[in-house]
């Protein structure tokens, strides 16, 4: 029998004790995974990651608000020298009043639609050289339009090639066409846009890049992000993170004490056996290694079961549409590290105690 097999067998000698111990640690592991998954789900839901990696550049003067485009593209000529920018997309944003109807028209490059958060749920993108348009789902429902229908804007008919969703009620009432077509519709000069959406490369400091952008553009040009929304989301998530951390620490302490107790009882039960192992030449190091490994087996089993149950619960939450969880590997790695550390700490105290047994005393133990 290999040493590994012996280590795998030992923790399960007293099954009820092992089950209790595993259950205790498993609950702690589940708390870590579930709270981690919920926090991560919230982060994704609220778009914190994208909010933290995206900003927009616009002419931040009073005159610009309410106009479809008032920023000259030449003002952005120096932007190419700003390091850390990943992607940019131009936006023109206006409204057309046709009698009693008002329609929001946005101009975007067709290849930037996804980047701008536009998801086509039916049909395709527009061809920028043709009179084609995509319309928001709410607009399609209101106007009873679908793909291949015609949409009349300012006496001109556009073919609807797709229906989109953005998750924003106002945007989903809009029509999107190419930048050039929107300039024609809204009577905008060729060198003007409303804003430039910017995403930064992973790991870059958004505030530093925003500051650099402002330094390299005229004074009225500002790099902005929706700070108030981001901050409130961040505050909520910081609180959830804090709670997760506190509960995780509690889980570690309770789980750790549980493992120490289980392993101490196990070592006491096996006093005579440990005396025998010493008598047949096992070193202190080997005995410590065996007991710590047994403890790690218990906590690793807890981790595996805790992960399975957590995933099952999260699936159930998603199935019943209660919550959209997220499963980043990070939370499982953290849970495993916690389980491993609890295993080492929980096993070390009893292991050191066992290694100090005098063989002659241990062999006489009743």
């Amino acid at each position: 029998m290999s040493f590994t097999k012996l280590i795998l067998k030992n923790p399960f000698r007293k099954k009820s004790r092992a089950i209790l111990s595993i259950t205790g640690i498993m609950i702690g592991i589940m708390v870590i995974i579930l709270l981690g998954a919920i926090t991560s789900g919230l982060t994704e839901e609220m778009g914190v990651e994208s909010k933290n990696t995206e900003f927009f550049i616009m002419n931040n003067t009073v005159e610009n608000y309410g106009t479809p485009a008032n920023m000259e593209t030449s003002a952005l000529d120096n932007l190419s020298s700003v390091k850390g920018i990943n992607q940019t997309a131009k936006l023109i944003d206006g409204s057309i009043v046709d009698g009693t109807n008002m329609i929001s028209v946005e101009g975007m490059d067709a290849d930037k639609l996804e980047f701008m958060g536009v998801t086509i749920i039916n049909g395709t993108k527009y061809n920028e050289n043709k009179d084609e348009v995509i319309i928001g789902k709410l607009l399609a429902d209101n106007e009873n339009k679908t793909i291949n229908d015609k949409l009349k804007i300012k006496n001109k008919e556009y073919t609807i090639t797709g229906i989109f969703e953005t998750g924003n009620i106002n945007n989903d009432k809009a029509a999107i066409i190419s930048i050039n077509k929107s300039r024609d519709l809204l009577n905008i000069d060729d060198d003007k846009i409303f804003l430039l959406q910017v995403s930064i490369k992973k790991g870059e400091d958004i505030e530093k890049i925003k500051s650099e952008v402002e330094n390299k553009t005229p004074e009225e040009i500002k790099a902005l992000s929706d700070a108030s929304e981001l901050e409130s989301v961040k505050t909520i998530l910081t609180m959830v993170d804090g709670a997760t951390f506190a509960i995780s620490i509690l889980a570690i302490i309770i789980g750790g004490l549980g493992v120490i107790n289980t392993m101490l009882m196990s070592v006491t039960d096996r006093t005579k056996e440990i005396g025998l192992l010493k008598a047949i030449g096992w070193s202190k190091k080997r005995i410590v290694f065996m007991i710590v490994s047994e403890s790690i087996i218990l906590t690793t089993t807890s981790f595996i079961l805790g992960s399975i149950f957590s995933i099952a619960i999260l699936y159930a939450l998603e199935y019943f549409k209660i919550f959209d969880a997220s499963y980043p590997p990070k939370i499982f790695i953290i849970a495993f590290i916690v389980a491993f550390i609890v295993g080492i700490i929980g096993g070390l105290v009893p292991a050191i105690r066992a290694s100090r047994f005098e063989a002659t005393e241990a062999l006489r133990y009743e």
Partner: protein
Amino acid sequence: MSENIVTIKNLTKSYENGHIKALNGINLSIRKGEFISIIGPSGSGKSTLLNMLGALDTPDNGEIIVAGEDLKKSKKLNEFRAKKIGFIFQLHNLIPNISTVENVELPMHSHGIKTKNMRKKALEALKFMGIENRANILPTKLSGGERQRVAIARALINDPEIILADEPTGALDSVNSKKVMDMLKKLHKEKNVTLIVITHDLEIANMAQRTINVLDGKILE
């Protein structure tokens, strides 16, 4: 005349700050391959002497050299026990949740032997003890005599130079006691191992080539 495997000079050991003198100036020589029995009343010091021989306990004073190892000075007592000594206890001390053959394999773990070779050697030892058919069952399913034979197989697995048996038949009935002693005699004869047995049973003591009588921590001449 064969060489000494045990040389003990003026060995003393006391407990509780010297109030209890377990060994009080022991002098003893044992030749290689000898079968020795140690007798004496309870508390006479015979188990302490056996523990000293097996490096399970350390002396206060005196000299003890076993199988070429100075046990008072040696820093490698684990290795010494693993390689040179085989222990048999009154209670077999088998681990209950692993099979008979796995129990026999235990002393080989500190030798870095491959699992396959460990199994082969353990089965041979069980065969030598006549219980190879009990190899894969748990010790709890064995009779008292069988358990003690497994313990003997475990003691001889590393081909030790000395086997130390502390009342090996103490917990057995007369039939099983005879079987176990027959096995120990076979082991002594066929493997030429030095056998040192503590016993209260004079019949068993008389099976040995020499009997040492211990009283009040001293060997009676």
